[in-house]
């Protein structure tokens, strides 16, 4: 693999797209570069990581089995902390799952060319994060074997779900989100699966990838429908992604608990989700692009842009914290004031609170500096810090609000058990396992889109800067009326 010259070139314009793909590639070399890791035998590192992930997955199996065997009593939940790690982890994973669709859909709609190289990656992350998240609502019920009662179906009981409950909204939101994200991901994958099918070396590979490629042959008629379908899915996903975390925030905002009952929750949760989602993309993509040798297509420019998003959403999250505290003071409600100024800041979980403030309010501000935005080690560490901070945020919202509410007689602390931890770590294992399999078996970058982008960039090189704008607007959206 040739060293790319792109790094040495001075950036001219923030959205100047030249740096998004190293210029020396053509379709064929892109093909080889981007599909190579599927055909290559995985290295020792991959197996080692898979081993780690699978061990963590084992923890999940143990934790889940133990929970089913003993009951929710295996967790640290109690009265008044009826929700604990289960819901914290749920919200955390759902939040992480937001960046993928956001990158894919919103950036597509806003015609941000730089998304192309990372959207596949981010979508996969979304999908797996939502799978991890989906475990929790089911598992955290006292009787998961009756969880199907949350779905509206004509039962012999003659009873129905209760549609005023945010938990039913959640069921619909999360399942819709999972389904639509999966469809979006799969639709995007179809041309690449066909490419895999056609570049496969053995009959078995060809058959398997052929099965998933559904007989895609890149026909003009296919592309004709495909372009609009993909764009529409993106268009649908955009409000969906906003709605999902809005509904997740309703789980709290609809209640009347001090610390939960706040109108700022939907925007603040969506921003928090994007914040943590982008941080997770950074966390994953930095090593991945190194090991998959994808620096030509996932360039520093991509990373820097993502860091800008992290900075922006981090500031929105900080504003959310500020407003929560302001409204608590402004309301004059002693319950609210207690929750925000006594319990959170000085209560039994003050340590977690200040960790959250450090991670989420202070850390993103380093991205005001270009040096930090472009330094791989700094951004990688910062992204991990942000994800820790966002987990702490969910912990603070859920546990501190529950632990001390209206009647002081009921106040009690929450202490997680080993089962809580093993399930949490276990979902990371599940996520890691799925992600490693993804990296191995499907292209980590949307090959067809990169090729298209490559073509456009060439055109741009020929026609000059004006042409860039024109053709940039044309990618995939071209031909749509």
């Amino acid at each position: 693999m040739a060293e790319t010259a792109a790094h040495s070139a001075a950036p001219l314009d923030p959205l100047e797209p030249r740096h998004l793909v190293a210029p020396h590639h053509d379709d064929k070399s892109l093909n080889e570069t981007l599909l190579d890791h599927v055909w290559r035998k995985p290295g020792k590192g991959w197996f080692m990581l898979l081993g780690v992930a699978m061990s963590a997955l084992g923890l999940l199996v143990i934790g889940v089995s133990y929970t089913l065997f003993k009951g929710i009593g295996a967790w640290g939940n109690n009265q008044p902390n009826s929700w604990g790690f289960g819901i914290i982890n749920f919200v955390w994973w759902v939040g992480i799952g937001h960046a993928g669709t956001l990158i894919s859909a919103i950036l597509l709609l806003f015609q941000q060319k730089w998304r192309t190289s990372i959207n596949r990656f981010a979508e996969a992350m979304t999908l797996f994060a939502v799978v991890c998240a989906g475990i929790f609502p089911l598992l955290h019920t006292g009787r998961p074997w009756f969880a199907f009662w949350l779905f509206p179906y004509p039962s012999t009981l003659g009873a129905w779900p209760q549609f005023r409950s945010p938990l039913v909204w959640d069921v619909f939101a999360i399942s819709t989100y999972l389904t639509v994200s999966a469809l979006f991901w799969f639709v995007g994958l179809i041309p690449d699966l066909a490419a895999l099918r056609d570049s496969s070396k053995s009959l078995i590979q060809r058959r398997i990838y052929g099965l998933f490629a559904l007989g895609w042959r890149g026909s003009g008629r296919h592309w004709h429908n495909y372009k609009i379908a993909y764009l529409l899915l993106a268009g649908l996903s955009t409000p969906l992604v906003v709605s999902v975390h809005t509904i997740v925030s309703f789980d709290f905002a609809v209640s009347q608990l001090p610390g939960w009952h706040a109108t700022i929750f939907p925007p603040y949760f969506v921003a928090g989700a994007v914040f943590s989602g982008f941080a997770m993309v950074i966390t994953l993509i930095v090593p991945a692009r190194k090991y998959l040798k994808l620096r030509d297509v996932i360039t520093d420019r991509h990373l820097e842009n993502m860091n800008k998003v992290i900075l922006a959403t981090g500031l929105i999250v900080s504003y959310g914290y500020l407003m929560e505290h302001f409204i608590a003071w402004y309301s004059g409600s002693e319950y609210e004031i207690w929750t925000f100024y006594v319990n959170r800041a000085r209560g039994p979980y003050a340590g977690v609170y200040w960790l959250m403030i450090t991670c989420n309010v202070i850390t993103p501000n380093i991205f005001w500096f270009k040096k930090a935005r472009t330094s791989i080690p700094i951004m990688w560490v910062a992204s991990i810090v942000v994800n820790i901070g966002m987990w702490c945020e969910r912990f603070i919202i859920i546990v501190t609000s529950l632990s001390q509410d209206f009647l002081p007689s009921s106040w009690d602390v929450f202490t997680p058990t080993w089962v809580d931890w093993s399930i949490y770590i276990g979902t990371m294992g599940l996520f890691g396992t799925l992600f490693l399999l993804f990296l191995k078996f499907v292209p980590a970058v949307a090959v067809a889109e990169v090729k298209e982008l490559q073509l456009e960039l060439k055109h741009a090189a020929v026609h000059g800067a004006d042409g860039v704008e024109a053709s940039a607007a044309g990618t995939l959206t071209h031909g749509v009326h």
Partner: protein
Amino acid sequence: MPPLKPKLDGAPMKDTPTSFALPVVSDAAAAPAQDVVGEALDHASSRSVADEGAYGKTYWRSLEEKLGTAEYLEVTKPEFPEGADLPPTGVARREFMQLLGASMALAGATACSTRPVDERLVPFTRTPPELTPGNPLHYASGMTFGGSTSGLLITAREGRPIKVEGNPQHPVNQGAASQFEQSFLMSLYDPQRARVLRNGKSPKAVRTFGEEMAIISDRATQENGGARIRFLTEPNTSPVLAHLRERIQERLPQARFHTYASVSQDPASEATRALFGQPASAMYDLSKADIILSLDADFLESRPANLGNARAFARRRDPAEGKLNRLYMCEPRLSVTGGMADHRLRVKSQEVLSIASAVAARIGGNLAEVAAAGARKAPLSSEFQKWVDVVASDLRENAGRCVVIAGERQPAAVHALAAALNAELGAVGNTVRYVPATVTETTDASALRSLVDELMAGQVDTLVITAWNPVYRTPVDLGLEKALSAENPHRSKLTVIYTSLFEDETSQHADWFVPAAHEMEAWGDGRAEDGTVSIIQPLTQPIFNGVPASELLAYFLHEPFRTSYQILRDFWRGRAEVADFDTAWETWVSMGIVPEASAQSLTEGPNVQAARAVVDAYTPAATGELEVNFVPSYAVFDGQFANITWLQELADPISKIVWDNAAYISPATAKRLGLEAGDVAVLTYRDRTLEVPVWPLPGTTDDVVVLPLGYGRQGLHEVVARDVGFNANLVRTAKAPWFEGGATLTKTKKTHKFALTQSHWRMEGRPLAMDMSVADFHEHTGEGAKLYRVRGELPNVLPDFEYDGYKWAMAIDLARCTGCSACVIACQAENNIPVVGKEQVLRGREMHWLRLDRYFSGDEMGDVEMVVQPVMCVHCEKAPCEYVCPVNATVHSDEGLNDMVYNRCVGTRYCANNCPYKVRRFNYLHYTADKSPTEKMLMNPDVTVRARGVMEKCTYCVQRIERVRIDARVQKRPIYEKELQSACQQTCPTEAISFGTLSDPNAQVTKDHNDERSYMLLHELGTRPRTAHMVRLRNPNPALVPPKPAEAHEGGH
């Protein structure tokens, strides 16, 4: 064809009189594998020849074999579901395989039907005439404890008692029952109860035992008139047992009876003996008392008259019932009564005499001499002078309408002073009358001294112990255990016969152990303190082969065998002077009360001058260092209820500690000694040491350490009670059974984890348990005032649902509630609420639907005020829990009940989060699993037994509502107010809870809701509770109220 003979759990049917039914276990669950003795009995009875009456030879051999095994001696069954917080290393291989199996089973479980394939209907062969399967029956009965017999009303379903209430016709109970009476039912079904009558380790038949006793008594009659026979009994209140005892004495004139009670009334008896010439009990009429001075008397909780006292006292706390009374209290620790006091003085126990003397001195008159005598023994500390002056003048101003009450822990001198004060203040005949005491013999530890000496000297051949567990509960310096153990050189000549419900500390020293019949298994009778005689009627046959006390004593008469029923009935037939005994008997049994004239008041007034002699005879207790105080536990009393899980998990009304006792000290003392809550300290007192975990408790007098009795049990089979807490009897002495100075506490490095049901004790300035003085209340009633927030008009955007029929509602009067916790147990018994164990309470998962929130106000380092607020589901009309339930498992009924449908619940627990009152309880583990067949019999069949993973909460006893409603509708009439009571309301000694329909303007609950004191908890949230709370009013003496600015009303932050 299924087998025709189902397995029945219980005694042979032939012996069953048709008047009461056998417990029938229809699910025929096998006894738990650990039930070695039960198994052996089953095995034996199946092999034995029928004619031999199930006492064949194989029986003994097999049983003996089994008894010799380690499993029998060491009870292995865990009482609770295993804690979920095992470390990962705790997952043994076997458990892991189970887990694996469970997950696979779950994976494979699809579309399984819930229908049990072969459920059996087992009808009666001959249905008893009074019994209709499915309908409850109520029997009047009684329970003897603490030297008095309560009148009870016991509900039975299909022949098994499931609920205990107070007998409404009983003059003391008046329908109320305390936590002890109610939980006593649980011990009936306790699978750990003793089942085997044994001699040494050899099981014996009752007949063999009877013959043996007959031989002993025959020989004694001939040889020495029983000079070497001793009986050790409980304080006797039973006419029939007294009669049996008289007859034994006739036959064995030289035999001697000793009596022991942990909480003895001896000081009072000693004082009254001097003042009245005979032992007398003071019967207070608190309904007439405007001013009450309590000298360390916890009269709202301490046995035996507490239920009646509490009711009369509480009525005078409600302004609707007239002028408020005023309670002055001086005591060393914050008691339930102290929590109700208007003015509470923190004193050491030994300072109470000085208070009494100083008050007497202030009252003057005839009391001058005795007061001076008292002051010589205990000079008054100058800091109490003002309090004493105010109290004395208040008493004097209200002469004739005041009363002075002395506590059972106080010496005779204080009782004498109290009686003298009552006489001087004109209380006698008005607010207090003295009646001859029911128990006349001495019952304290010093009375056992001679018995122990005789035992050690080898002067006793036969010791019959029917008193509960004297080895455990007698003071350590008495040496009873030593006298019964091999350390006694004459032990081999001594035969110890002991009867008890459990194999306990004393049974380990018994040669003959006789499993006792529970009071609900045998006929008996007993007197209440005021002399009312109750007939104690059994509700079942003995479940574990217990022997009734009267039958046991009758063996010493060597007469033809009579059952306890025959003994009782014969006795009353001989005694009653009625024409038609049979009819009278039926009436007594059904009413539960023998209408004998209750005790007449003593007409001779107290001899005030005699009080002086009593005071002079008083030897002041040692002073200095810390004063150690022993008190009976509010949960397990002196330990005899320690194996009852309901009581172990009943939070102490003051400290809210469960499953433990603690050495309570004041926060200031804790600070001085450098002790923190949960620190383990070494208590050194009179050359003895004991490791005790300490708990600083506001309201405790400084330099006082309070040690509750009843814990640290080591009974062989009392698995629940074993090793819970520490045994304060190990430092208690016969000389100073209640208090004495000279103790020290030394901190150790160890700590102890206490499980509390409430860890935060301040209200943080929130308007929750409203508690104010009368003056403040009238200031705050106006609009915009403090009370407006909890009852003003609120905006509402939601539609109003019409409730056409009944509108169920409740009102709880904080002015009446003392925090006695009887309602908590009533609720637990009525609603099949599981006990979860200390581990789970530590995790914060207690299941009580009804909890008593206890808040302190004031300076926690100094004087505090306490207010108790019962909180259970308030059935909000705009219930926050309901709209967040995804499956409609909690919705409103058309009568305004907040219904909880367990079978629909999937357990998301969102409802619990959104409940601002935090009254919802979740079954985190399968708390009702692993119940033995007898424990299942305790369950109320009208209430679903909840499984793991479902939410539950107070239902307003909807099962009672529905049963009464159906009855009323079948009879085509409305529900009468009196026929429907919630369990907590029914048992409440102070009538603090009213329940009924708001659609009836004359119902008590409607009146309470419209009362000026009524308010809604967290009213501002707009939840519109159906339960109203009523402001507690205090009636402080203006002379003792500190000036306004200093009023730190809520304390804390």
